[in-house]
């Protein structure tokens, strides 16, 4: 791809609030258009520099195109992007503070849902042990938040290493995530009933390690395809 031609396309697409896949499609199609115009100018005998300038001029004003593109994004797609931005702060490789922000947001959402459900059950069921269950649910939400923070922090780094083909580091990251997940399961058993010290608690925590490790690897592998396509665009510096 030609960097000079990517810039007007990115200027038109970057300000649009839409899902990553939708924006990727916009980039691909607009880039295809501008590059074809560039090639047609080259075929007419223009120099590379003149062909680039001509193609950029024919493309139009990027802010005006961005405004038109914005109108084509359905509301649900825009909201899901805004929610995604709120949770993950739009960061592909988050800092620790951003990862904690993600964890706190998810803990709050999950905690509110679980405690709301608990309150509902306490209202409709007589002799419902609301307090004890609220403590368990609170612990569950907090553990989920810690996992989400670490998962978010590690995922960006794992994907980067995957793209750089540093497979040993990728595996190490995934195992680290698996270990934290397994420890969380163990902690849940311990906090819920003390069953952790029984054989079944150990077994379930041990089983969680390979499951969480493989899932983390699979998710990062899938995400790496999208990141590889987005990266050349998002790394462009626009003035």
């Amino acid at each position, binding site marked *: 791809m030609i960097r000079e031609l990517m810039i007007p396309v990115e200027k038109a697409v970057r300000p649009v609030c839409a899902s990553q896949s939708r924006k990727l499609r916009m980039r691909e199609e607009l880039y*295809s*258009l501008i590059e074809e*115009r560039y090639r047609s100018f080259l075929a007419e005998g223009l120099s590379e520099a003149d062909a680039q300038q001509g193609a950029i001029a024919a*493309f139009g004003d990027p802010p005006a*195109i961005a405004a038109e*593109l914005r109108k*084509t994004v*359905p509301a649900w797609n825009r909201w899901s992007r805004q929610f995604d931005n709120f949770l993950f702060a739009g960061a592909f490789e988050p800092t620790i503070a951003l990862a904690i922000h993600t964890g706190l947001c998810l803990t709050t959402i999950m905690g509110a849902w679980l405690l709301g459900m608990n309150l509902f059950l306490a209202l409709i069921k007589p002799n419902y042990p609301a307090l004890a269950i609220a403590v368990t649910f609170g612990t569950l939400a907090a553990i989920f938040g810690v996992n989400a923070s670490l998962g978010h922090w590690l995922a960006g780094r794992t994907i980067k290493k995957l793209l750089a083909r540093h497979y040993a580091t990728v595996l190490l990251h995934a195992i680290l995530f698996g270990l934290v997940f397994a420890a969380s399961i163990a902690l849940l058993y311990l906090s819920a009933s003390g069953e952790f010290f029984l054989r079944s608690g150990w077994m379930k925590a041990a089983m969680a390690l390979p499951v969480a490790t493989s899932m983390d690897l699979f998710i990062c592998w899938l995400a790496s395809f999208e990141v590889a396509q987005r990266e050349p665009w998002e790394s462009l510096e626009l003035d």
Partner: protein
Amino acid sequence: MPQGIHGDQVRGHLETMVLSVLDQQDAHGFQIVKQLDDMGCGLLRLKEGTIYPVLYRLEQSGLVKARWEPVEEGRRGPPRRVYQLTRKGRGKLQAGRESWLKFVDIVGTIVAGAPA
């Protein structure tokens, strides 16, 4: 030399023009732009990047559908999506043509200053 027709003058009719191009053949964005340019004898000064917002609107309304173009051997450049008119799009185009002819007839009569 005749003056060119700029974006603002075309706005509002671009969707019908794109449908009309697609009525003749399935096409990707650049082919549509070129076709519009050829049919307008070079007088249609369309900003090319505005074609995709129009295509996305038409696609959302179900008037056109898009598919990836099969990769041709020896073709340079990125993959392209080819747009195709749907049955609903054909109906819309017919309505657009009728509406346009009516508009031209009325405005033409007034602008030409012909007696009513």
